């Protein structure tokens, strides 16, 4: 009984893990060779050869630091891989290059002005690489001896014996250390590190030589080798923090907690200026490296004219990241004005942009993308099923057919099959409507829905 419950719990967990596979988690780079030519299928990217080459060229410019403060626009129909290309660029920039993705409508909030939201997004995309050096004491606990005063009151004193393979020594313990040792439940045979500056104790695990002390042991017990060398070691850690994180920590009204609660409010301009100055100073002294990142603004046509003019200015700052924007609009009204402009972006900003356009996928490319997604989502699918899914993708949209993969897999698992076949696809195709079938359905049965007195020509205008 208990075992079956445990299994169920495990199963549920697995589903949530699957949900966390993002729509673009299969992208590992732009899939370019050394000559910057796009390989047909590589690093999760399929097709869009032209766009990928263009993105690759821009990437090289970013890496050489030639393009700071410039921006790129990726334009194309929905579902043609705009976000995928942006993700690919982010991936090829390397692990600790900050990449911030926001949607154009995200900056409209009651708590924060639009420009503040944009500034924060800008500063989230610039990383500062710094090094921390700490002194730690690392060793295996040989013995802990704690003397409690006979009266039960007063300060406790104690001794802690630590050893490495080379040496052994005794430390006198004060009340505070004794408390944290008891809190961490440190006992003889544990391998611990003690941060010298803060006195923080971390348990690394139990020593291998003590592996036979008990027969019954929790599964989380980790065995480690007794450390080698000196007891007092030096540890170097390199962090990459973003300018925004430093802003938040140093704006006095906020405090560190704001980082987690998410609601950072507005940050004063002076604070930002001071931080910029300090960072520049660290850079001079060789204490910090600046890692210019990428800010990706999806659905950029949702920004209004004020934001666009702010962007114009902000891009000229020498700490500006590379801004990549994506839009799926053609010639449309600029938000906040009555004027029409290509992509809904003012001409003066458009003039500063490098524009990459994406085109719809061919059938063959669709099939390859679906195959990659199947792999990413851990779904076994028969050849026929993929062909059917590709056809569905051609007729409806790529997004819809990708969504069918997991759904079909669930159906397949319900019937205890090992491989998703055509019937599974057909079943989910009948279960879930795509956009055009849903429209069709609405047209047929509109009379039976509520509030259906909208007349035909009113529909046209909206």
């Amino acid at each position: 009984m208990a075992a079956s419950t445990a299994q169920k719990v495990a199963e549920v967990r697995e589903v949530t893990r699957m949900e966390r596979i993002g729509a673009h988690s299969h992208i590992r780079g732009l899939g370019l060779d050394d000559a910057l030519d796009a390989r047909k299928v590589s690093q999760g990217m399929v097709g869009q050869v032209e766009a990928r080459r263009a993105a690759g060229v821009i990437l090289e410019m970013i890496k050489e630091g030639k393009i700071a403060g410039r921006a790129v626009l990726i334009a194309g129909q929905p579902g043609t891989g705009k976000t995928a290309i942006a993700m690919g660029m982010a991936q090829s920039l390397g692990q600790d290059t900050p990449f911030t993705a926001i949607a154009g409508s995200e900056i409209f909030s009651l708590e924060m002005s639009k420009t503040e939201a944009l500034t924060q997004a800008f500063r989230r995309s610039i990383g500062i690489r710094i090094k921390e050096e700490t002194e730690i004491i690392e060793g295996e606990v040989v013995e802990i001896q704690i003397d409690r005063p006979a009266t039960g009151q007063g300060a406790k004193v104690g001794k802690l014996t630590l050893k490495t393979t080379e040496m052994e020594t005794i430390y006198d313990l004060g009340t505070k250390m004794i408390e944290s040792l008891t809190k961490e439940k440190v006992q003889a045979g544990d391998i611990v590190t003690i941060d010298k500056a803060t006195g923080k104790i971390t348990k690394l695990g139990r020593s291998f030589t003590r592996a036979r002390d008990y027969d019954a042991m929790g599964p989380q017990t980790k065995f480690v080798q007794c450390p080698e060398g000196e007891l007092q070691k030096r540890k170097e850690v390199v962090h990459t923090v973003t300018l925004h994180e430093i802003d938040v920590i140093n704006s006095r009204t906020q405090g560190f907690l704001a980082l987690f609660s998410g609601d950072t409010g507005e940050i004063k301009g002076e604070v930002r200026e001071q931080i910029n100055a300090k960072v520049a100073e660290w850079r001079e002294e060789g204490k910090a490296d600046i890692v210019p990142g990428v800010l990706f603004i999806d659905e950029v046509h949702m920004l209004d004219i004020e934001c666009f003019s702010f962007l114009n200015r902000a891009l000229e700052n020498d700490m500006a990241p590379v801004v990549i924007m994506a839009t799926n609009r053609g010639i449309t009204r600029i938000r906040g004005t009555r004027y029409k402009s290509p992509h809904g972006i003012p001409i003066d900003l458009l003039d500063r942009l490098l524009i990459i356009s994406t085109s719809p996928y061919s059938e063959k490319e669709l099939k390859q993308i679906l195959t990659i997604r199947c792999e990413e989502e851990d779904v076994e699918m028969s050849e026929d099923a993929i062909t059917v899914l590709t056809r569905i993708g051609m007729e409806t949209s790529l997004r819809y057919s990708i969504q069918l993969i997991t759904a079909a897999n669930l159906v397949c698992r319900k019937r205890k099959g090992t491989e998703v076949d055509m019937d599974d696809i057909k079943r989910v195709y009948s279960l879930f409507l795509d956009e055009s079938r849903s429209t069709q359905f609405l047209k047929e049965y509109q009379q039976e829905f509520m509030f259906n007195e909208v007349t035909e020509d009113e529909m046209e205008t909206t």
Partner: protein
Amino acid sequence: MSRDTQFILRHLGELEQLAEEVLADKEQIVDLDRTRNGNREGLRSLIRQNRQSKPGQSKSWVCFGDMFIKLPGPTAQAMIEQDQEKLTEEIDRLHKELKPKVAKLRDMEGQKEAKGFDLTALSSDEMKAVGR
């Protein structure tokens, strides 16, 4: 011997010497840390003893090489403290020199440079400003 053999021989000799130096330095750091920990233990008990006895009354045996000398407590304490400082300095120096030595060794062995960022560490005050 041909020129090539000469060259290789010299190269290997240099390599061996450098590797030996790195190993010796590592060993020395361990040795110094051992002495430092021993001193620290001694210092602790000296301080405790000095505190318990009347001022100017405590005396301890201190071992210099293979000779024991009886010294007044505070004097012994000051001596060990001085010693500790020197030890810490020496360990720091060795640590600092070790990195370039290892880099040079790797270079001579034809290995890639160990990956790093060539950064100077921030002080603890500065670390606070970035919230770590």
